[in-house]
């Protein structure tokens, strides 16, 4: 069965404008789950880039998501079978919605796609990838 691995990240809920201008390290992957929510992996080393601008921001060490990279072609085939909504065209792109009836975040690059699901559903997601 394909192995989804827990992703070490920081999840942040903060003012949208603070997230808009957050100085997240270039080397990390920052996904905007919602206007007020940002997911950064690997975990943020310096939390003050957020807290300095929004003292009420919530930052947690986030290990509750699991992910797997698939080559672009394999991902496209799986998505054609299991995704009822249109994937954005540009690359890289972030998208989220139900895939195989499980809430999923997608990070789409030219050559590969990262599938991220809540870790409690990783087992079912892996089974559905295998079908």
């Amino acid at each position: 069965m394909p192995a989804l691995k827990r992703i070490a990240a920081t999840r942040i809920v903060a003012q949208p404008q603070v997230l808009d201008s957050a100085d997240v390290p270039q080397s990390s992957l920052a996904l905007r789950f919602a206007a007020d929510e940002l997911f950064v992996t690997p975990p943020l080393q310096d939390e003050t880039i957020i807290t300095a601008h929004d003292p009420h921001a919530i930052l947690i060490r986030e290990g509750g998501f699991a992910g797997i990279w698939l080559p672009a072609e394999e991902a496209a085939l799986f998505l054609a079978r299991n995704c009822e909504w249109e994937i954005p065209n540009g690359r890289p792109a972030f998208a989220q919605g139900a895939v195989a009836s499980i809430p999923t975040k997608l990070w789409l690059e030219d050559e590969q796609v990262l599938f991220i699901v809540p870790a409690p559903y990783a087992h079912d997601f892996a089974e559905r990838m295998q079908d």
Partner: protein
Amino acid sequence: MRLIVDGRPISYEPGDSLLIALLRADIQPTGGGCLCLGGDCANCLATVDGVSYVRTCQTAAKPGTVVQLHHTQKYPPLPQEDEARPAVPARNLFSDVVIIGAGEAGRTAAREAEAAGKSINLLDATYGEEAIGIYPGPLVVVRTPHETLHVHAQDEIIVATGAAEILPIVPGSELAGLLTRRAAEKLAQAGLDLGRVVAIGTPPAAVDCQLAAGELLRFEGENGRLHTVITQTEAGQENRYACDTAVLNLGLHPRNALLRMGHNLPVRAVGDAALESDIPACPNEGVVCPCEGVSVADLETIWEQGFHEMELVKRATLAGTGTCQGSTCLPYLRSFLLKKGKTLQPSFTARPVTRQLTVGEVSAGTHHHATARTALDAEHRRLGAQMERSGGWWRPWSYGDPDGEYWAVREAVSLMDVSTLGKMIVSGPDALEFLERLYPTKVSTIKDGRSRYVLLLNERGYVFDDGLICKESDTRYSLTFTSGGVSHAEMWLRDWAASWQMDVHILHQTMSLGAINVTGPLTKQLLAKAGLANPPGWLAHTKAEVAGVPCHIFRLSFTGELSFELHHPAEDSVKLWRALLEWGQEFGIRPHGLHTLLRLRLEKGHIIVGQDTDFDSTPRRIHHDWAVKLEKPAFIGRHAVERTNKIPLDKLLVGLEMADGPAPMEGAVIWHDGQFAGHITSSAWSPVLHKAVMLGWLHYFDGHLPETVTIDGRSARRVPVPFYDKEAARARA
């Protein structure tokens, strides 16, 4: 190349549909009647590779295909067993425009769309792409021989499905040997010998035939086969035409079911599908609806019985409710009602599905609701746990020895995976005000580092969830909710925060945090060994490392014993769990499941929202008035609680114990003097108390709550809760 028909191999030519192959072998489909070869009528149905009601004219012949003709008098049998076929896959296609039908009109529409810079998907039924329904989206669902397509349109759907040919309805129209004009042309093209052909109306191209003069009167035949066409001239004279095949051209009615299905959606028809239907003359005799065997006489009878609305005629005769969904009979039903003096009726409602697909095909691409697994799921299964779905999660029900698990908690130390507990953080300048309005408790009196058990009420003053508020600072609180209730609670919080315009951040972290409850009299020894020298006091919480894992530690107790709930990053759950189990060996540690937890908390009289409460549980009815501070100016449910508090109580959640004997089942009825007095919500044998203890709803009788009742034919007594450790000395040890 051969296919198998009723156990007999027959040869066919490349490109044949099953129907053409059958006719080539001189086998008439059992439906009888006029064949259209266009997928419109239901006269060529057969069971193909185990699937009944397949239109053989729309199905390509393949080597080894197994065809069973339908019985003429009986419906096909239900399949005995599923042959474990592979699931049908779904495929999603996206474009600006979806065009259904690749005929002239469809291809023109496709060219126009492309010229306008639109992306298109053109569906071609001749390649086996049968559109079965249009749904909001807009979405076209398409059956193909191999997969189910979900074709999504960004802009519009164009129905270019053409028109169906009107079939004859006269005496003898059930005979074999009748063809529509298009059907005759297709068969001639396939090289079939149609014998002597008589044409009624415009004759088919490239078919030698005799033209019948006059109006069609009836068909005559023998052994189900046509031999004569009879027409009538205007002068009233009958003409007889001996023939093998009659070819009918009686007009067209649009294949617009998909268009009608898509009303109020961006769907339009082009070409013949957009035509108004020809309305044929109302027949005097013959079968109008071959699917359900409804004759003209049946329509006359039902009219005489007072069924005059189109929909009532349909429902009473069943005309139009069969496999072809009115494709054959609809023009004639409209014609019949017109003749009866009604205005021309619109076509009846078009509902999915038009061309048909199997239950398996339509389910393509879907899955069951996934049941969530905690980070410790594999640990539980390895320990032999019986897993139970609870609140959307897989949870250990027991590890095989409920009594052993029970005593580990009461006398030693035990673990339970409570990661499923709903968990959120609320932070912001308005955090306190927000929580004051949400919760009936006085949140401002919770001190830093303390936590409090709280109820959540809806606007009607009924309890819908419970949990903890844990104060971290004046502007930041951690909240917990029930496992099954947290999804609803999250929407509840977000909706109210938005509608009150509260300046707060909300983070739902149920899956981010694992939680292990360490409970039992030896808990402190175990935690000390795991590195926690100074555990928090009763109802306090603190952050510290346990077994090298950073934990947020809550001191509370649901089991009735000394308990610490260790919230920790989910990725560390396994490490923490294994370390505690290993270090707990010397203290007799073993994990416990839900079964044991339900019994432990019942001994303590702790309710479970959802099990012991119902839609109408006010705090007062469950003895939780203390959790509601009516002196607070505003919180959700306050008005309702104030109002209902003035109404005399009718029932109360109470503790009960049996005089002797085993625990009654949960749901058992409570009787008092032979009258219904309520029911049991929780029930268990208490090993430590040596008696059966229960919670249940007990009704008032003339303002009094009975002291003794009958359950299961045995005597039970109302008692105060908790049943066990009334002073809570053990939990607070």
